[in-house]
């Protein structure tokens, strides 16, 4: 660089492939200037971080050590937010420095592949919201509710520590590596990095995992809407509302997204209020009171139609509504918890923390708590979102830390709030709502007797409280409303009515919560079916090329039917399961989701190894090892455990034996048909566990092989081929995080002076 006339020639411009245009200001902050800025600890900065650390420490102390009679919900907020801030400021910086090593002189796919449609540079804060809306759904709202069975502390620790060391790491790495590969999907990356065997295993595993995830999300909706005319009416109304929005956007006023979202939101509120009125009429009760099996069939038919209808008619408009609600609800819930600050009387560790026969979900704390809370701590499904869509929109490489790592921290916070909402209700009520009918008996009297017989400290449930709560939230009954969504809705209604409206508004808040959960889930079911259908079409296309043509109708319909049939079968199995459905299937959901996380982390491990970063590879290996141990242990227990409540095959054998002995009822199954159903269901669930765990072990093994191979080649000095897109120099600049640093501000001011036509000109484009 010596002798370059341009005084601005410096390290910030780079050499070779990424040497940026000298007629423009640098596209990255000067490395040494940035380092100096980061290393400079002013007294104000030290005081700030000391205060954050202190507040977080005090909050953890209150939650984990003091554990008085009650604990205030505000400590959950402080403990989580302070830990997130420290994790973000320090741990994610370590990952950035030693693992990802972003280079802002390199153009991102949004710049070098810019097409104004799929590849568009997007403002970092907008993209943060966009990415968050894509990753957050019903998952983080449901898992923590079920995990509250074991007390608040195990779930809280796993959600907060898990996200910092595992979940956010996965999201960030997958997003970064996908961005370096032009926005390739996880499946494509697995194929490239792990070879044909690992790649194929990853693809099949992903497909099966999607089926399970969609089925269990659907089961949550069915459980929330069964025997609830109000819920069925208001959630059902989202379909005509979305259709109207779709037509409005397509034909009346194209592109007026905000306008139509507002109209949709108003209609949605009207549907909730209208649902209350309809549920009070005799015809409303008659038409909209549906049992679980009918609802499940309705959802299956709906899913099949929705996946074939054009996107503009149903999926896109409902997605707008869902995003709108998501952001609104989360802001509202956070505000309410901070303002109301409910007192929590649930113990830190409940009686079930040390047992493996909990009624909400069976199994010991390790490993089953860690699979019950998947979303919010570590969610493999995010890897599918973090690869593909978001990387095509990122403006600068350094922003992936804020969007990927930061976005996941935000989802974790949602999980914490869901946990707080669930544990703010009476503990007896919690167990009456979340235990299957087979245990509670289904009526307020039997449920109260059963809950009191559990011998839980401080629990004395009266039938009166159960019927009063049901009346307050506008439901016929709340006994055995499993699945997490109704419990969260009661918790949210309980908190919100103290914030706005009082007891009179409880029914509205309850159905508001049911509505938004159903909205998220229906969007996920619809989008999940579509994504899975295309994956299936592409896979079959390898053998029958005709299937690769996405517009070929028979292929599309056949693949949709296969996918809907698959998740529909699992859904019906859950709905009719004599053992209760959610408590037998939810562990499978968590295991599936975290096996996907293990697959994603395994791909990241191989990539990191190929980049030659061995000293800090533990950053990826640690969450991978944990996810692998948890899911493989959980799978093995599900397969081999001799305890019938835990092991699928043990249960299968017990029921088969009972049938062979000629018994007509056994355990919670009251007829021969029910016993046969248990035998069938446990066999399917057992074999699914076997397939998942075998596929995942194959993927992890191929990733380890790739890692060892990379290590050997590095030791021998041979170059390892990477699969990144070639580096091209960037011609834009934008800050990396939420608040620009002084150096970034200075550079932004320089860029502001550049004439617009020079700034956006792209060499080599047309």
């Amino acid at each position, binding site marked *: 660089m010596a002798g370059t006339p341009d005084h601005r020639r410096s390290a910030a411009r780079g050499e070779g492939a990424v040497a940026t245009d000298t007629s423009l200001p640098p596209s990255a902050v000067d490395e040494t200037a940035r380092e100096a800025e980061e290393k400079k600890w002013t007294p104000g900065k030290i005081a700030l971080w000391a205060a954050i650390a202190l507040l977080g420490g005090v909050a953890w102390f209150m939650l984990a050590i003091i554990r008085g009679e009650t604990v205030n919900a505000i400590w959950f907020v402080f403990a989580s937010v302070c830990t997130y801030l420290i994790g973000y400021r320090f741990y994610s910086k370590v990952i950035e420095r030693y693992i990802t090593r972003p280079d802002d002189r390199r153009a991102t796919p949004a710049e070098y592949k*810019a097409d*104004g*449609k*799929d590849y*568009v540079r*997007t*403002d970092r*804060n*907008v993209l943060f*919201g*966009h990415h968050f*809306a*894509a*990753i957050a*759904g*019903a*998952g983080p709202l449901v898992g923590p509710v079920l995990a509250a069975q074991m007390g608040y502390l195990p779930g809280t620790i796993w959600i907060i520590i898990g996200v910092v060391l595992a979940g956010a790491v996965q999201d960030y790495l997958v997003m970064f590596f996908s961005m370096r590969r032009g926005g390739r999907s996880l499946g494509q990356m697995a194929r490239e990095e792990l070879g044909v065997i690992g790649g194929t295993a990853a693809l099949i595993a992903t497909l099966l995992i999607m089926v399970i*995830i969609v089925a269990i999300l659907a089961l949550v909706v069915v459980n929330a809407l069964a025997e609830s005319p109000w819920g069925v009416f208001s959630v059902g109304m989202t379909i005509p509302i979305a259709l109207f929005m779709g037509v409005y*956007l*397509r034909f009346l006023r*194209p*592109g*007026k*997204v*905000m306008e139509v*979202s507002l109209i949709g939101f108003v209609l949605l509120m009207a549907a909730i209020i209208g649902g209350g009125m309809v549920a009070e009429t005799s015809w409303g009760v008659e038409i909209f009171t549906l049992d679980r099996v009918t609802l499940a069939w309705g959802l299956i038919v709906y899913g099949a139609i929705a996946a074939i209808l*054009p*996107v*503009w008619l149903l*999926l*896109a408009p409902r*997605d*707008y509504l*869902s*995003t*709108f609600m998501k*952001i609104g609800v989360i802001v509202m819930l956070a505000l309410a918890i901070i303002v109301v600050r409910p007192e929590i009387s649930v113990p830190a560790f409940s009686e079930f923390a040390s047992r493996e026969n909990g009624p909400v979900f069976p199994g010991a704390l390790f490993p089953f708590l860690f699979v019950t809370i998947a*979303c919010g701590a570590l*969610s493999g*499904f*995010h890897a*599918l*979102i973090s690869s*593909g*869509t978001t990387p095509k929109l990122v403006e600068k490489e350094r922003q992936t830390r804020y969007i990927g790592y930061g976005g996941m921290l935000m989802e974790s916070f949602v999980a914490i709030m869901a946990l707080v909402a669930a544990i703010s209700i009476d503990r007896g009520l919690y167990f009456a709502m979340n235990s299957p009918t087979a245990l509670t008996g289904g009526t307020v009297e039997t449920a109260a007797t059963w809950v009191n017989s559990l011998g839980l400290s401080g629990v004395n449930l009266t039938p009166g409280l159960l019927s009063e709560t049901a009346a307050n939230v506008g439901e016929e009954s709340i006994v055995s409303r499993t699945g997490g969504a109704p419990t969260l809705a009661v918790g949210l209604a309980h908190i919100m009515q103290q914030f706005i409206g009082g007891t009179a508004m409880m029914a509205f808040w309850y159905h508001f919560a049911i509505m938004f959960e159903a909205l998220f889930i229906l*969007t*996920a079911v*619809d*989008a*999940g079916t*579509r*994504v899975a259908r*295309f994956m299936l079409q592409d896979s079959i296309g390898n053998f029958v090329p005709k299937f690769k043509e*996405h517009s070929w109708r028979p292929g599309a319909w056949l693949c949709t039917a296969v996918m809907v049939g698959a998740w529909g079968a699992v859904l019906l199995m859950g709905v009719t399961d004599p053992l209760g459905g959610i408590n037998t299937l939810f562990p499978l959901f968590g295991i599936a*989701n975290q096996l996907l996380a293990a697959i994603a982390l395994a791909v990241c491990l191989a990539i990191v190894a190929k980049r030659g970063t061995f000293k800090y590879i533990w950053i990826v290996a640690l969450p991978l090892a944990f996810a692998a141990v948890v899911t493989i242990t959980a799978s093995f227990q599900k397969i081999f455990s001799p305890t019938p409540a835990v092991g699928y095959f043990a249960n299968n054998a017990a029921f088969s034996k009972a049938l062979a002995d000629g018994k007509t009822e056994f355990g919670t199954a009251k007829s021969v048909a029910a016993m046969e159903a248990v035998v069938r269901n446990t066999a399917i669930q057992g074999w699914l566990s076997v397939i998942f765990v075998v596929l995942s072990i194959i993927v992890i093994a191929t990733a380890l092989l790739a890692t060892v191979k990379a290590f050997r080649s590095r030791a021998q000095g041979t170059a390892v081929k990477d699969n990144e897109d070639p580096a091209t120099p960037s011609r834009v600049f934008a800050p990396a995080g939420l608040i620009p640093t002084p150096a970034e501000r200075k550079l932004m001011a320089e860029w502001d002076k550049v004439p617009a036509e020079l700034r*956006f*000109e*792209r060499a080599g*484009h*047309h």
Partner: protein
Amino acid sequence: MSAALTAVTRGFQGFARYLGGVLGADAYTKYLEHHQASGHTTPPLSEREFWRDRTDRQDSNPQGRCC
């Protein structure tokens, strides 16, 4: 008083713009910007055509939504 009102209006507008960005309401504006900046000689798609094309492409290129 009016200064405070302007500040509130501006804040609200900023929030609405942000929400619009998250929803993707500004996609057409960004497409036009790109079209102009990249020096295409053909006229850009009209707003109606653009949105039609956008949702139709999503038909065969679905975006995942998470649990």
